[in-house]
Structures are given as structure tokens and as C-alpha cells.
């Protein structure tokens, strides 16, 4: 039995209302406990900032990212963020590392851990490709993982919604989560993936999906109701229609409003809208393009049924990857960039295209501002998950840099000064003086995730929580985060300690050991009769349309060597 006592930690733990107070933390067998024996190993935190391990609830870390790697060998030598990018030879404790936007699996684990993160969520798993996702999960060291399963252009889903079969729909979703060992429902450009099967797209919530006679709005509602029927730990996770288009904020707000009256039996939102930066665009074309963050934020401030994440843009090279197939093709033509695509039989589509966000480009400058505006104009930090939608808005290794934008108006002003005059008139960030404190940062980077994913043992340091702990080399008592942003960035770039399940995995910014992480998945139970009826329909799909047999479709136990099965009962 291993025991650990962390003394003199200044703890920011919003779930437990601990606002950067000095205290000790006791750890036993990988969990936070009330107290430990005198024989416990002691770490003296010396007044340093201490938080629960970070949770990145929306990142592209396994599966599609491999397409991004495959097409960009030059990314492997990029060193844009020293210490957290580029090539590193193997050491006695670490495997070889490469890359920046699309690092190899080992580097993903090491670099998140260095930043004090201990849990990450892959944002998009195609069911038929789920085995691959889990193979990559297994290769990512240290971190706990979970993934969201794509349902938004799935034939069976659309047919059940069209045919008004909500029970079978819920049973199918439960089965799909089991087949893919997924944690929740992801919806990407609902219906758009199917339209892309013919090189087309859907234009908004009420534009019917070709050949399926359902609308994106119906898909969203149907899946949200199934989500609540199944009592899933997460809400639906929505990538709205019309992503990346000027004027799309209206679709975004309309999508949010759809779910206003849906009730959940769990203590969480009924809707998470992802990477809203890409969906808060005003104007009618790229010429009159402007931030619509104020409109979107106003709406979010007026309601309590939803959470969202930023998809903050980071200046420099990035790699877009999404199940939104038509958007990626359009990107590649507009940017004259490489284009990878994958039409996934009966289920979805996807694409991968590199991009560079330049501070000299007025559109990119406004994109940069929109993410920050959303974070700062939405009053309640519990509604806001910090992300760059890595690597869509930029690689996750830029998180420490991005924190400084949120915490320091002075730092923001330095960047704003470099932006084109034309961009300044299209954004609101120069007039915003809000600066997040460490407590609010802790909410956006770990605490709100605990609630929004109903992960009771993650994102906080209360008794019973997993002993996933980050100790950063700044002292909340003395640091002024609004001006000392260099020190803030440095501290978050290489934790003094990262502790995962009670073990010190990072010390002084370097990897100390590399245990294997766990994989969370949800087994949602439905009445057997409904499951059987659903199975009859699914069996037909395999017989006639899939190119793999049903027996070879389900992800086998062998691919989850350290599973955590979350069971729910349908209402």
C-alpha cells in the first residue's frame, strides 16, 4: 500500500469550494484520503499552486490524428513550443518523441502530463474505426482516456428518428457505445456527413438530409432525448451545422435553443456545444466577417442548460481534423492545402487539412479574438471548457500560452498591437478587461469537466477522488497573474509534480515514470426486448450494407487492457 502526503500545498479546488488555500493532501492507493500514516512519503509543495490533474474533454488524440500525422512528416520536426514539441531521442524512461500538431502517441502522453493533465477525451470515434482509436489509446502513456462516439450521420440513427422509434434509437445508441467502447454521444454537423457522401452539405437545422427525410434539428433532438433516456454521464456533444462560415452564429444559437426545455435526471447540462469559436462568426462573407461572440455569449448567459468549449485559435501552424467532411474539403480548396478525407460506411465522414493562423491575416486575427471573447463574455466559468480543439485551433502544447491571454489583459494588449487595423474593428477583445484568476482557470481546465462528464473521481481533490494532482511552480500567495505571465506560462508548461493515481509521473517538468492509463467507457442498459428488436434492424444493416461482419465489428476486450466500465440504467 503506497501512501503519500503532500504538505503545504496551496490548493485551488473549485468542486470543493477551496479557493487557493494552504492545506495538506493525503493519498493512499491512488486515491485522495482523509489522512495517511506517519510512514507516508512526503512531498513538500512549499506553497506552490496545486490543482487536480487537468482534464481535456475535447481533443483529437487517437484515430483521426493518425491521418494528420501520416500526411505531415514535416510536422515531426516542428519545434514551435520548446520542451513540448519536436524530436526527442528515447531515454531510460521515455520512448522517442516527435511532432507538434500531430505528435506521436508517446509524446501526447508525456506532454499532457508535463502540463499537469491526467485525463483526455478523444472527440470523435467512428464506430467502425473504434478498434483503431483504442489501439492508439493503449499507446498513449500515463493518461486516462475516454472517447465520444459519432452518431450524427448514422443511417440507423436517422432511420429510427425518421420512423419515430425513440426506444430502438436509445437501444441502438447504447449498442453503438458498447461496440465502440465510447463514453458519450458526439454529433458532428448533423446530417452533413451523409450529405457529403454525395459531395453535398446540409445548409442548416431544417435542411433535410438527402434520401433520409430527417432534418439536422430532428437528429439533434432525437439523440438528445435518447441521451437522457439512457441516463448517460455526459450530454450530447454537438459540433453545429455551418461550422466555419460567416454568419453561422445564428445556426449556433438556434441549435442551442432547441434543447432549452429538455430535462436531465443527472446533475449536468443537456447540451455541450463544442469549439464554439468556429461557430460564432458574424458577417455574410469573408469580406464583412466579424466576431459574433457577444451574441452567442449573451444567449449562453441567459440559459442554464448547456456548456461549451472554446476551440481557441493559436497563431502558427495547426492541423484541422473533423468528422465534418464537407468543411474540410472546402478548407482545402480555399487554402490550397493538402486534403485527406474518409467517407465512413453507414456512419459518417471526416477530413484532415493543415492550416496556419497568421496574426497578419485579418480573418485569423478575428478568430483568435472570438475564442477569448467567448471565455471572457460568458459570466459563469462553470459553463466554459478551455480547449483549442487540439490540433484544430492549435496544438494542446500551447495551453499555457493561451492561459496567459485569459489571465492578463496586458498580455492580450501585446498581441492585439500586432494585429491588422482592419481586424480590430471586427472584434471586441480590446474592450474587455476581465482577467481570470487561478480559481477560474481551475474551473475551466478541470473542475467543470468533472461535472459535465459526471466524472466524480476526476477534476477535484476531495476525499475519494483519484489522486491525479498537479503542482505548479508558482505561489498563488505572491504571484500577480495579470502581469507575471511569463512565470505563469513557464509554470504550466512543466509541472513541478504531476501525480497520476498516486504516482509521481512528472517531477520538475520531466517525465519520472510512465504507467499505463485507464480507458473509461459507458455500458448503458436497455430492456432486453427493445435491444432484441433493435438487433433485428442492425443485423439487416450488416447483412446488406456493411463490409465487415457484425461479429468482427464490436471492439474486443483485448483492446482495453485497463477498462473502467460505467454502467447506467435506462429510464
Amino acid at each position, binding site marked *: 500500500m503506497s501512501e503519500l502526503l503532500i504538505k503545504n500545498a496551496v490548493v485551488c479546488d473549485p468542486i470543493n469550494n477551496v479557493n487557493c488555500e494552504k492545506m495538506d493532501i493525503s493519498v493512499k492507493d491512488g486515491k485522495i484520503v482523509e489522512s495517511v500514516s506517519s510512514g507516508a512519503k512526503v512531498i513538500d509543495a512549499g506553497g506552490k499552486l496545486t490543482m487536480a490533474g487537468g482534464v481535456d474533454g475535447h481533443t483529437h488524440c487517437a484515430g483521426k490524428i493518425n491521418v494528420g500525422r*501520416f500526411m505531415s*512528416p514535416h510536422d515531426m520536426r516542428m519545434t514551435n513550443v520548446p520542451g513540448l514539441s519536436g524530436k526527442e531521442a528515447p531515454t531510460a524512461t521515455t520512448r522517442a518523441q516527435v511532432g507538434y500538431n500531430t505528435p506521436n*502517441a508517446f509524446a501526447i502522453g508525456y506532454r499532457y502530463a508535463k502540463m499537469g493533465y491526467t485525463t483526455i477525451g478523444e472527440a470523435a470515434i467512428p464506430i467502425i474505426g473504434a478498434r483503431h482509436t483504442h489501439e492508439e489509446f493503449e499507446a498513449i502513456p500515463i493518461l486516462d482516456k475516454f472517447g465520444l462516439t459519432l452518431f450524427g450521420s448514422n443511417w440507423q440513427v436517422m432511420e429510427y428518428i425518421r420512423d419515430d422509434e425513440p426506444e430502438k434509437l436509445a437501444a441502438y445508441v447504447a449498442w453503438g457505445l458498447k461496440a465502440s467502447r465510447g463514453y458519450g454521444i458526439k454529433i458532428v454537423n448533423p446530417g452533413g456527413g451523409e450529405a457529403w457522401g454525395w459531395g453535398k452539405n446540409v445548409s442548416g437545422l431544417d435542411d433535410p438530409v438527402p434520401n433520409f427525410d430527417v432534418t439536422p434539428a430532428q437528429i439533434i433532438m432525437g439523440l438528445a432525448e435518447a441521451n437522457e433516456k439512457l441516463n448517460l454521464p455526459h450530454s450530447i456533444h454537438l459540433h453545429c451545422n455551418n461550422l466555419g462560415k460567416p454568419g453561422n452564429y445564428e445556426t449556433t444559437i438556434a441549435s442551442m435553443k432547441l434543447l432549452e426545455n429538455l430535462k436531465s435526471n443527472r446533475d449536468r447540462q443537456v447540451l455541450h456545444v463544442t469549439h464554439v469559436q468556429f461557430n460564432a462568426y458574424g458577417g455574410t462573407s469573408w469580406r464583412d466577417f466579424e466576431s459574433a461572440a457577444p451574441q452567442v455569449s449573451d444567449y449562453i448567459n441567459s440559459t442554464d442548460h448547456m456548456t461549451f468549449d472554446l476551440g481557441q485559435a493559436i497563431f502558427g501552424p495547426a492541423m484541422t481534423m473533423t468528422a465534418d467532411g464537407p468543411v474540410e474539403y472546402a478548407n482545402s480548396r480555399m487554402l490550397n492545402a493538402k486534403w*485527406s478525407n474518409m467517407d465512413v*460506411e453507414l456512419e459518417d465522414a471526416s477530413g484532415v487539412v493543415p492550416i496556419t493562423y497568421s496574426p497578419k491575416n485579418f480573418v485569423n486575427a478575428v478568430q483568435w479574438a472570438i475564442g477569448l471573447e467567448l471565455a471572457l463574455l460568458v459570466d459563469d466559468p462553470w459553463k466554459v471548457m478551455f480547449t483549442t480543439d487540439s490540433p484544430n485551433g492549435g496544438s494542446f502544447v500551447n495551453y499555457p500560452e493561451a492561459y496567459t491571454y485569459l489571465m492578463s489583459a496586458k498580455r492580450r494588449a501585446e498581441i492585439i498591437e500586432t494585429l491588422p487595423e482592419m481586424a480590430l474593428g471586427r472584434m471586441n477583445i480590446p474592450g474587455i478587461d476581465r482577467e481570470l484568476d487561478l480559481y477560474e482557470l481551475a474551473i475551466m481546465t478541470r473542475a467543470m469537466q468533472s461535472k459535465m462528464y459526471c466524472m466524480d473521481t476526476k477534476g477535484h481533490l476531495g476525499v475519494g477522488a483519484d489522486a491525479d494532482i498537479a503542482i505548479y511552480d508558482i505561489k498563488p500567495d505572491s504571484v500577480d497573474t495579470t502581469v507575471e505571465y511569463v512565470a505563469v506560462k513557464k509554470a504550466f508548461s512543466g509541472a513541478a509534480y504531476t501525480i497520476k493515481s498516486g504516482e509521481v509521473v512528472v517531477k520538475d517538468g520531466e517525465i519520472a515514470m510512465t504507467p499505463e492509463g485507464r480507458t473509461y467507457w459507458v455500458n448503458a442498459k436497455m430492456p432486453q426486448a427493445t435491444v432484441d428488436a433493435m438487433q433485428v434492424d442492425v443485423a439487416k444493416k450488416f447483412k446488406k450494407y456493411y463490409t465487415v461482419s457484425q461479429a468482427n465489428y464490436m471492439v474486443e476486450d483485448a483492446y482495453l487492457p485497463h477498462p473502467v466500465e460505467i454502467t447506467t440504467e435506462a429510464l
Partner: protein
Amino acid sequence: MAVITDAICSLCGSLCDDITVTVEDNVITDVERACILGRNKFVGMFLHDRIESPMIRKNGELVDVSYEEAIDEAAKILVNSKRTLSYGWCSTSCEAISKAIQLAEETGSLIDSTANVCHGPSALAVQEKGGPSATLGAVKNRADVVIFWGCNPAHAHPRHMSRYSSFSKGFFTQKGRKDRKMIVIDVRKTDTAKLADTYVEIDQGSDYLLVTALRSAINGHEDVIPDTVAGVSKEDVLELANVLKEAKYTCVFYGMGVTQSRSKYKNGDGVSSLISDINQHSKAVMIGMRGHYNVTGFGQVATWETGFPMAIDFTRGAPYYNPGETGANDVLTRGDVDAAIISAADPGAHFPQDSLKYLAKIPVIQIDPYANPTTELSDVVFPAAVVGVEAEGTAYRMDGISLRMKKLIDTKFKTDEEIAVDLINKVRELKGGA
């Protein structure tokens, strides 16, 4: 007697997963639904002589030794090498590939797959322009135009056309072949071409010119196309371009006729651009016809573990990638390595003479179920289980879908994965002791 259903055929990149296998007394006695090639793999393995024992070459002869002695000898070769080539790893599981990569990393070696002599240029093409692709089921359910370019599935992928492409029936293609236009582009009239609605015969090595002319036509620049391109009349080029523009869904399946002919990866690069251009008018995708059943898996595993799909050089610690410099034949023809470890591949039968001459000069470690021409060049030989028959594990279909291969019968032989792990451990022991 055991009957195993939904078994996966580990022969070619089609990775058919609907095979029924009958096993009696640990021998496969019947195979249903497999093609002749697959059947030969399942049943034929009992007809061929296996390598029965680990062997080491002593005084010019391969002699039987204990497994431990062979591991010891092989590890010594690896530890004493300035730069080893690890090659093959495409007719084995992803789990074995992962360990092979770790072995290469720990020994400062260079590791490459059989893509070096088949679809390696396809990867380079993706790195130029991306890979606009689809799963095979998307083609089955949607494609009304199927093009086979420089490939001959009638021989190399016998069930491809019935399961996934020309003849398959799907949701939007209920009539199968009748709903579909089949086009073959090749330098000679293959058996696949004989089944096509349209056969376009092109001059050897001129694929890139035809791709470019098609692009010009689709992009509205007919005027720049000469009367004949690649041996094809302008009229035929324009007609083909028109078919692509008018199609609902086109898939271009391309083979080694594209990747290994003159202009190599620029052909695939051009096809990728062509696909992008067609999508301005309709919908199109491309899929490479991969040969070895898990050559796609090597590319996938290597990419998530090292950042690169093939030709990965750990000589300086961190991985470096540069086909043309770090490919298996690049280093063999130049004599840039001083040892080799070869698994589940037969360079003895497939490499150019220069490479083989050099392989004969350096210590070679072979891991394989069967003796083949490479055995003649080898100094340490490990017999291995037949993955996909005697050992389970993951493989990737040509479209990037991964499947779990079953273990169908028991074996006394170690798996490639176990041998790689034993080598890693022995190398660590030798290095630690040094």
C-alpha cells in the same frame, strides 16, 4: 471438430472477414468463402515444410540450435551493429509491429516495411496532397463509377470486386454491376480489364501525363490538351473526364502499376489532385490496392508510434524519415547498413540484385514460418507461428479499417511478437552488461 465463423483471411489487403474454417485435430480441413489464394494460405500451410527449429549458420551451414542460443546470437548481431536494417513486418500483427519498432528504437536501427517495394510511393503522395479516401463500404453502397488503375484485382484481390467494388450491391447500388460503370486503365488488357465497360490502354510509364490531362479537362482547360496524351486520344480523355464529372460517386482503386511506374509517387500525387478537382463537380475518392494483408497496419502503427509510416531511421536516436535515403533498398544498394533483421517478408525473392548482393555480405536474422530464398542469405533463423492462423492479433484492411484476426489452431512456434520481445530483453541485458 470445430467450425469457426467470421474468421479473417490474412492473405491480401482485402482482409475478408466472413470466412468459415473447419478444424479437425488441429488441422484446417475446410475453408468456406475464401478465394483460391486465401484457401491456399489456410489449407496450404499444412502442405509446405515449416522451418522446424531455430538455426544459426556455422561454417557456412545452417544448423539447428536452441531458441536461447539463437536469441543470444541475434542480439549480439544487433548490439554490435553500427546500423541495422529491420525489414518486412507486413504479414504479421500490429502487436508484433509495435514490438519490432521498439526493438529498432532501442538498437538505433532503421525499420522499413514491404511498402518499400509496393505502395511506399502512395504514402509520399499523401504527404504531398493528402489522401481523399473512403471505407470500402462507402464504395459498395454509393459508387456508380469504379476505376481500376494499374491494378488487377481479378488476380491479386480475387474477392474485391464481388465484396467491395464492381459487382457488390449496396443501399444506393441495389443492382450491383448494372448500376455501375467499370473502367480499367492499364498498359495491357488484364483479366480485370476484360470485365470493364471501358478499357483505356496507356503507354508504359505515362500515367502522370494522363492524370494531368484529365485534370486539365475537368478544370475546363481542354485547349491545353494535345491530340494524344499517354497514347490516349484527346477525345477519349475528354469522354473519361466527362464520365467523372457526371458520376454520382467515383472510386479510383490504384495499384503498383501506378505507384511503381515512371514518376512513381507523383502519379498518386496527381490522382489525389484529380480527386480533389472532381469533387468540384461530383464526389470521388481513391483507395490503394494494398497487397500484404497488414502492410496498411505497419503504416498505421509506425505512424502513431514514430510519426512516420515507413523507412524510419533511429540511427541518431529520434526517428528520421526520408524515403530515397532511409528506405530498405536505398540503404542496401548503397551498403549503408551492416546487419539486417527480416520478418514476414522475402526480399530474397523481391529485391533487386544489388540489394541482395549486399544482404549476402552482412549478418542477416530471419523470422519466418517458412524457408524461402531469404533463408539462404540468413545467419540466424527463427521459426515463427503463422499470424492469423496460429496467432491472433490486429490487422488493417486496405481502407484503414482494423480487424482482430483469430487464432484458429494451436502451434508450438513462438509468435513474431514474442520473438521481438525476447530480442528486446536480450539486447537490454547485453547493453546493460557492457
